[in-house]
């Protein structure tokens, strides 16, 4: 505490389950924790609203897999916010978490002052952030008129501000596709979506209903090689790219525009996790977790987009419920699944697999895995090999395997320090 230097004003709180972030993951996990017996549940959020990004996601498609109905973002989150209220869950708005530690203490600051929330379990649900021009290092001038797609969504859907008239979108992630349609609907001229990969990065349904329905061009295997404009952006130079994503000389084309939106990927937000000493996975950008979504620190759980960047809120919520349930069990029984190093199975992504969650297992029986392939692959089989012996072989269910794939696999008895490798068989 001496480091913070505010001992005298420190507000002390004790709590069962504390959730960091009030987006869909945080709210769903908080509700689940309450339903599975945690008496006192607090959700902390730095914003002055509840629901994270969903209030600005006014398009529909939320809830299809989870509830069988298609809702807009605000409608989806409203169902859970109501439920959280009815369950007596406290949401602390405008409260920023500064740090957490392995004693399960949260230090947070709000207008009331500095507080220490001693918790029995902590759930990380901080979400993710958009990549910016700085992450991509696009050459050229540094004019105004360049926004991330999500920021443009905030401007248009919440504040009634149009970011520009002639728009180019870099990246075909779902937010970019949704924003292409949104801008067109609001009267802008959307000149095209530029994608460096040879296939679209967003869901097929969004390619159809956001681009094809509105005749917006999608340029695959292309990237922006220069941004030009003195004060405001006035053009981008695009080039075709080869198999290695390298621009091909003499393929340059000019697209005049006054606005460039970037939809080039999301980064899980884990500054708090990293500072607490939680070990992160380089591929997911989120904490390493076991089958209960428990991180490498006992009592701390992770869910939502800070764990892995999800394609849909539905699967995110399904997983967040498990994290919430387990955090409640831990809070009630004080049961720390502490046997990490010895009894664990280490799960490794093998050939063709980008990442897999959970990365650690310490029980036998059915385990719910989620993973991504390195590239789309329609007609493949996935093998689960425990110490080089195949224990499961599954067919890919989805035709668009750029997305997260879910598989339930039964884990048999195993010896300590086993390795489970997941492999794509072409």
């Amino acid at each position: 505490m001496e480091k913070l230097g505010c001992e005298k004003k420190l507000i002390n709180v004790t709590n069962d389950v504390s959730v960091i972030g009030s987006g869909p993951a945080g709210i769903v996990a908080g509700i689940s924790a309450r339903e599975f017996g945690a008496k006192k549940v607090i959700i902390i959020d730095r914003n002055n609203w509840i629901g994270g990004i969903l209030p600005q996601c006014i398009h529909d498609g939320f809830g299809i897999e989870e509830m069988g109905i298609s809702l807009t973002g605000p409608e989806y989150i409203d169902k859970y916010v109501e439920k959280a209220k009815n369950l007596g869950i406290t949401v602390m708005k405008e409260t920023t978490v500064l740090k957490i530690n392995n004693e399960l203490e949260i230090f947070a600051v709000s207008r009331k002052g500095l507080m220490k929330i001693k918790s029995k379990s902590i759930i990380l649900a901080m979400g993710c952030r958009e990549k910016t021009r700085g992450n991509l290092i696009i050459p050229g001038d540094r004019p105004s008129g360049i926004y991330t797609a999500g920021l443009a969504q905030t401007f248009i859907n919440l504040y009634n501000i149009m970011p520009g008239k002639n728009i180019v979108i870099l990246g075909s992630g779902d937010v970019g596709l949704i924003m292409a349609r949104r801008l067109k609907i609001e009267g802008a001229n959307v000149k095209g979506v530029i994608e460096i990969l040879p296939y679209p990065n967003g869901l097929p349904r969004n390619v159809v209903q956001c681009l094809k329905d509105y005749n917006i061009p999608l340029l695959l295997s292309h990237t922006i090689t220069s941004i030009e404009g003195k004060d405001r952006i006035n053009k981008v130079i695009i080039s075709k790219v080869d198999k290695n994503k390298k621009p091909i000389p003499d393929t340059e084309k000019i697209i005049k525009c006054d606005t460039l939106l970037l939809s080039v990927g999301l980064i899980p937000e884990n500054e708090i996790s990293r500072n607490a000493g939680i070990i992160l996975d380089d591929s997911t950008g989120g904490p390493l977790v076991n089958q209960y979504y428990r991180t490498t620190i006992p009592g701390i759980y992770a869910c939502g987009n800070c764990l892995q960047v999800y394609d849909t809120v539905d699967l995110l919520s399904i997983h967040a419920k498990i994290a919430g349930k387990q955090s409640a069990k831990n809070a009630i029984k004080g049961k720390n699944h502490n046997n990490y190093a010895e009894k664990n199975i280490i799960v490794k992504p093998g050939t063709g697999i980008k990442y897999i969650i959970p990365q650690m297992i310490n029980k036998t029986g059915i385990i719910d895995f989620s993973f991504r392939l390195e590239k789309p692959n329609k007609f493949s089989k996935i093998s689960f090999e425990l110490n080089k012996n195949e224990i499961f072989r599954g067919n890919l269910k989805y035709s668009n395997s750029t997305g997260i794939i879910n598989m339930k696999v039964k884990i048999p008895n195993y010896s300590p320090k086993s390795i489970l490798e997941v492999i794509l068989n072409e």
Partner: protein
Amino acid sequence: MNDETKITCILCPIGCEIRINKKNLFIIEGAKCEKGIEYSKNEVLDPKRILTSSILIKNGILPLISVKTNKPIPKDKLFNILEILKKTSVNAPVEMGEKIIRNILNTGSDIIATKTVKKSK
């Protein structure tokens, strides 16, 4: 063979690619569920979409209220409906689910609010 067309189903994140005969609506392959079969037939006969957008709200804590059609509307009427939405404004407060325009352009679909916007103090 020329009667064959490929339709990407938009009903769920899977996005089945369904091959269908445009003339006799015979499904050739690709649909993983019943809903997809129905969708691809409708897509050939009369493509429909849910439209989501926003309209101006006066005296609200936000300048806009998000809205949607409560049923899918014909695709070729999207921009006609948007023209109407552009000219529409409401007064706060408006509750989620409230009907703002009934039976828009005789489509049988209502424009409803998808969020609650309270009156500004």
